[in-house]
């Protein structure tokens, strides 16, 4: 309102600038605000859900033979005897100041903060996620664009079939199949199956298997692992995750572009004599970003919050495993912190997707 009043008295130019900047900034701030509100609501849900879990830390730690007095003493020590609402506000208050609290595993004189427990695990998870995203996103976009360009050709069908197959299997199955492939590299020659095949076939299969690099099937790393060693060891989980997420992103890219290809302005581009590749890249893709980015954000969020199964298969020390362990030992502060980090990741990535959608929409970016 204020801006409008000011603009009316000013000349044309400042009005134009104001109109151009304001709506986008406003929308972004609005989304950011919604994100924070969502995060707050999620924190309540996380807290209540965990409070409702059966069993508690004291009983789980002390075992069944513990007397009620020792249980009560431990509960008092870690603050479990306070009412839930009080516990929630003290937790969320500290969280807002960046204090993640202490793990229940802390003892007097030996404080283990949640932050120091989560930090290295989160780094590992981010490492794996970024490494996978750097391969999977360009791969998915590229394949999607090519599939849209050569739609209904054998290439399109092949890509669709392969990606559909990889997405149809549960991720642990894909993981084990890959591990099996690596193991077969060394053992195939000696198997009964290989002996039952004609020699030439067995030899060529063996040769093919040996072309595959000998990726480690156990991704055991620690904070001393050098960078490239880390990449090498994380290769198997990364390939597995790539296979799982490429299909979704690739299919959305293809569908979004093909959807655009029926627009009149694509007919116009054809009537202007543009080459098919130019039509897809210059005329269809810029209008198709919004749905693609949404799906990419969804899959990147999955890379951080949904990879626990793959971590377990390859014994990769990420946040997912940490959270499962913390749930088992009823280490509530760690569970809550993990859940909140996951929620924040989701909200942040979706926020970025929204902003990109706005930035690629000239109607919003350049209002009349």
């Amino acid at each position, binding site marked *: 309102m204020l801006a409008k009043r000011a603009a009316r008295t000013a000349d044309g130019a400042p009005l134009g600038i104001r109109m151009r900047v304001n709506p986008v900034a406003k929308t972004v701030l609005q989304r950011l605000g919604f994100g924070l509100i969502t995060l707050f609501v999620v924190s309540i849900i996380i807290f209540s859900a965990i409070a409702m879990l059966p069993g508690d830390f004291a009983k789980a730690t002390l075992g069944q033979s513990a007397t009620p007095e020792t249980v009560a003493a431990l509960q008092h020590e870690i603050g479990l005897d306070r009412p839930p609402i009080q516990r929630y506000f003290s937790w969320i208050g500290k969280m807002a100041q960046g204090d993640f609290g202490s793990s229940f595993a802390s003892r007097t004189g030996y404080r283990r903060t949640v932050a120091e427990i989560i930090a290295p695990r989160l780094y590992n998870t981010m490492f794996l996620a970024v490494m996978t995203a750097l391969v999977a996103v360009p791969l998915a976009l590229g394949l999607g664009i090519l599939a849209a360009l050569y739609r209904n050709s054998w290439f399109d069908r092949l890509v669709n079939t392969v990606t559909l197959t990889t997405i149809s299997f549960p991720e642990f199955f894909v993981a084990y199949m890959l591990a099996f492939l690596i193991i077969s590299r060394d053992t195939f020659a000696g198997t009964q199956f290989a002996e039952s095949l004609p020699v030439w076939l067995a030899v060529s299969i063996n040769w093919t298997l040996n072309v595959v690099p000998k990726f480690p099937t156990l991704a055991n790393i620690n904070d001393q692992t050098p960078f490239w060693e880390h990449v090498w060891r994380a290769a198997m989980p990364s390939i597995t995750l790539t296979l799982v997420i490429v299909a979704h992103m690739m299919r959305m890219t293809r569908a979004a572009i093909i959807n655009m290809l029926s627009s009149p302005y694509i007919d116009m581009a054809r009537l202007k004599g*543009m080459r098919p590749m130019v039509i897809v890249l210059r005329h269809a893709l*810029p209008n198709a970003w919004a749905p693609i980015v949404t799906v990419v954000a969804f899959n990147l969020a999955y890379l951080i919050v949904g990879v626990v199964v793959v971590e377990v298969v390859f014994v990769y020390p990420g946040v997912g495993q940490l959270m499962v362990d913390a749930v088992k030992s009823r280490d509530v502060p760690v569970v809550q912190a993990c859940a909140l980090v996951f929620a924040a990741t989701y909200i942040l990535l979706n926020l970025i997707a929204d902003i990109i959608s706005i930035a690629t929409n000239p109607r919003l970016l350049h209002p009349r």
Partner: protein
Amino acid sequence: MKNNSGIAREKGTDLLQVRDLHVEGFSDERWHPIVRGVDLSLKRGEVLGLIGESGAGKSTIGLAAMGYTKPGCRITQGSVLFDGVDLLSMTEARRRRLRGSRIAYVAQSAAAWFNPAHRLLDQTVETAVAHGIASRDKANSDAIDLYRRLQLPEPESIGFRYPHQVSGGQLQRAMTAMAMACRPDLIVFDEPTTALDVTTQVEVLASIRRIVEDFNTAAIYVTHDLAVVAQMADRIMVLRHGQTVEEADTRQMLTAPAQEYTRTLWAVRKLAKPEVQTHDHILSIDNVTAAYAGRVKVLVDVSIKVPRGRTVAVVGESGSGKSTLARVVTGLLPAMSGSISFDAKPLPLSLKERSKDLLRRIQMIYQSPDSALNPRQTVEEIIARPLEFYLGLKGQQRDRRIAELMHMIEMDESFLDRLPGELSGGQKQRICLARALAANPELIICDEVTSALDQIVQEEMLTLLMRLQRELGVSYIFITHDIATVRAIADEVVVMHQGKVVEQGLKTEILTPPHAAYTELLLSSVPEMDPDWLTTLLARRKNQGIASAAG
């Protein structure tokens, strides 16, 4: 284009020859013929008008002249010789080199045919740069020159705008500039002014005509409006059901059409109704002002009286507030101030405060029956709904009433179990009418109900509406931008401009001079069948210095 200077323009050699063209389209699991054996030829610098109803195949022929078919269509037979080479048998790569550079296209709705993601200038020069005809800099300065020739405002900077930032008329001219960028030998204009207001249309027609003449470009001008094609074309070809009905020079076609079908094409223009004056008003709108949430006012201090059992036509260009007026009367958009009285009693401004019976008495029919009818409901369900909702009719009573309504709108009862998708445009609009009539309304608001229909279907619809008015005594508010329709049905006319009522009164008073300035502009912009109309009009406006509405 036309011979305006009095000296016959020299027409060149043969440029385009289409022989025995057959095109098919795929729908409902099979191929249907769209174009069935059409021949046409065009000389350099000549303009051929293709005219016909929707479905006549005129746009398809226009595209086929570029060797192009829309997805889902195919050319099955014939040849398209462009400058002596068959477009249909050459490789796709060679066709691509011709398109945009030697044959260009201007589409009906520029808003949809411009890519929303790129600036106008980038799109204008794209072909010239991609085909290596000009450097980017040279193409840019040429585009600005073309913008200037086409009388676009701020030619130096308008190219930096995105399509949604300029008006429809400007966009249509920018598209013409885009087509002209490589100075093609042939441009296909596909209804380039159909989506525009008449006042804007004049400007765009004049711009197109001038630039095509300047560069001696041959053109195929596709339209359904005979008066428009009369201004633009040297020769006219009438099409129906994918076949040529007749072909002749423009003047000959207008003065002596050989075929009966050609004569029926402008039948609606002869439909006229004597007006009746009455002082018994069913609806009176007093000093109403309305706005959409927090925006500028769309209606300012509007007062209109609707006589009982008569028709008030509300005319004006897009953005004049006609449709907002309909929303205010129906209560969908409650007025900010002012009052409305219906049948001598005050009418609550908001829909939510009106009784079911009040809602029943005012009904509405929309421009596009496709979006007004639920595609998953049968005709019977659609008509039965108001019968059950307003009148509580059930069983036999209901069925009898449905049969009556179908009889009223002159449709067979066999249509009752059809879905809207299985009906033609005119039939769908009749179903909308039946649904409105089912409520036994006293006032029906018709918002551009005939604009999407072909001339002949329009005439039938208008005749039906008039008959129903005589028989049922229902009053109409008829919103339209078409003056011919006003002549055909109105008793009183309200002229609106920028949310205000410019003039209102009996039809003859409004339509005969002297007019208010805006009414004059509006009426004089309606194309007439006279091929010299545009030339005369432009000359007259230049002399009088009438401010022209910027496109």
